[in-house]
């Protein structure tokens, strides 16, 4: 039997509320349609956890930044004080209590910077080219699930059926299209 291949990005189900997303994700995964993407107008923890169960790696970036910052802060104080050994107020050249303050501040600074770098790296941002599936309403009031890689008529029908049964108010095919940088999308 010949199978007709379709030139589409996937099938997208648009829902009324974020509360419908976890079920849609679960049912798609149960139907072996696991290459999917969710779009949410809010940070809905349950939906995100359903689609991305692994813990975020951002914390490791922050931890690395914290270690680097603390070491850099302490290193800077010790090195600069040793390089210019001026006694002030009768205090030792290497006075640890004030050095700890500098180390703490730089620890926090680099940990925060690490968190931002981790966020950019893990979420693959910046990416100024909108996806084929992207529409303005997704950021406003319409959570959605995009099931990718549905090249055949059969798998496409299955994806559409799964999304409808999960309560999608609108199911549509997303054609593959190249979009430009910061291209205006309706």
């Amino acid at each position, binding site marked *: 039997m010949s199978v007709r291949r379709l030139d589409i990005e996937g099938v997208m189900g648009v829902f009324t509320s974020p509360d419908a997303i976890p079920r849609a994700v679960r049912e798609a995964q149960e139907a072996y349609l696991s290459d999917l993407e969710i779009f949410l107008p809010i940070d809905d923890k349950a939906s995100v956890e359903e689609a991305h169960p692994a813990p975020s790696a951002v914390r490791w970036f922050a931890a690395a930044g914290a270690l680097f910052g603390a070491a850099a802060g302490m290193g800077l104080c010790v090195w600069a004080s040793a390089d210019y050994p001026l006694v002030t107020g009768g205090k030792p050249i290497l006075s640890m209590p004030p050095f700890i303050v500098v180390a703490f501040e*730089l620890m926090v600074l680099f940990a925060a910077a690490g968190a931002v770098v*981790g966020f950019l790296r893990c979420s693959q941002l910046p990416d100024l080219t909108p996806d084929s599936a992207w529409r303005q309403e997704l950021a406003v009031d319409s959570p959605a699930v995009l099931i990718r890689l549905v090249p055949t008529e059969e798998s496409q029908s299955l994806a559409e059926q799964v999304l409808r049964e999960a309560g999608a108010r609108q199911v549509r095919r997303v054609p593959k299209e190249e979009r430009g940088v910061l291209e205006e999308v309706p």
Partner: protein
Amino acid sequence: MALAKSQIIERNSGLARHERVGGLADDPEIRREFRELTETVVGATGVGGPWFTAALLLSAGAMGIGAVSWWAQLNYGLEVTGLQHPMMWAMYISSFVWWVGVAHSGTMVSAILFLFRARFRPAFSRTAEAMTLIAIVTATAFPIIHLGRAWRFYWLLPYPNQRHLWPTFRSPLLLDVFAILTYLLVSVMFFWLGLVPDLAIMRDRAKGWARTLYGIASLGWQGKGNHWHHHHMAYGIIASLATPLVISVHTVVSWDFSLGITAGWHSTIFPPFFVLGAVFSGLAMVLTLMLPMRALLGLKRYITLEHLDWLARLILLMSLLLSFCYATEYFMIWYGRDQLEKVNLLNRMTTYGPLFWTMTLCNSVFPLSLFLPKLRRNVPFLFVLSLLVNLGMWLERFVVVAGSLARDYEPYAWAREGYHVMLVEWGIIVGSYGLFFFCFLLFVRYLPALPIAEYKRELLKEKREQHALEAAGLEREP
């Protein structure tokens, strides 16, 4: 056995979270509310009109006065100010401490309320964070202005040089530089990270160069699952870091004074005293900014009287804690029997009496009115009270900084006439307010004043609770 209302909500919320079958999945009301919120907040950004232009011009005029005054000081030197031995720290340093205090409250309150998942946070977190950034920039200007030779401010930084001269890391003044710069940068990250999803909404509605700017600032955010996944973690980490950071920063600022041996300054109570004062003045400034903003931008529906009530409760709490610090300080001076400390305190209460007692009224007495629930929801009253608290906190900084220096260990140098604020100093103070309000107006003009995505989440939570109550046949508490 009948379940308590809170147990029913919890049970149903749990079901909604893990099962998510039915529930609010098909509730069209949520979409409508999300859309209305987005349109209202985005619509408020294009604010203009005569009042806005007038406010902008007034702020720009005040900035101009500040610039001319600073030019005069640079041109003629610090002799044009009232600074003289022994009162070498006065108007500028008091203002620096006050502005840093205002700045510290924003991120601290926003971060702590985020970590505690406070329901009322979205109503004023964005305003508080914006206020933080602007206030810290304003605050940073004061030590530089106070230097006199402002072009040498870079000496504060540990930069490599041929003579191997390094600043001393044992000085609290240098710790201040590190603390405040760290706070500024972390606050920028915290503010921007929270703003990214909302900037994407702004991008989708903007045209031309504005679209490009919003697009770049929002990094191409599309609200994908992995975007939210890592955003949540990064935002949570920075909020967790910001909380101890702000406590440390105002502690370091307090060390500028308490590590000196000057009577009136040399006290271990200064760190908590400064941190509490910072939060207190910052909350008052949030109210001062938010009350006109909610009326003029049409945000009354989203910044409700209930939100103001919560904010007023926080202000009351801070006032009580601060008053406790005052009482402890005065008690220790009396109980410690250090004559110079006593003379110093007496001087603050008499020579600086009008300022001292006004400060006491504004910080410790007037806020007690917030025990009355009606007054916590009375908008004009809250606005006036917020101004009084701002004034009281500024006077407190001035009385502590200048008042203490007036009676140091050298009686021959005691300032007989006291300290007189000169025209240039008034000009620079006016300029700092101009800078602050000018930047705040630009913020209101170009960025969403409410965190849209976060507010939507709170709306959804509220709907879920309502749904759970209805399912259990209960009514929502007023």
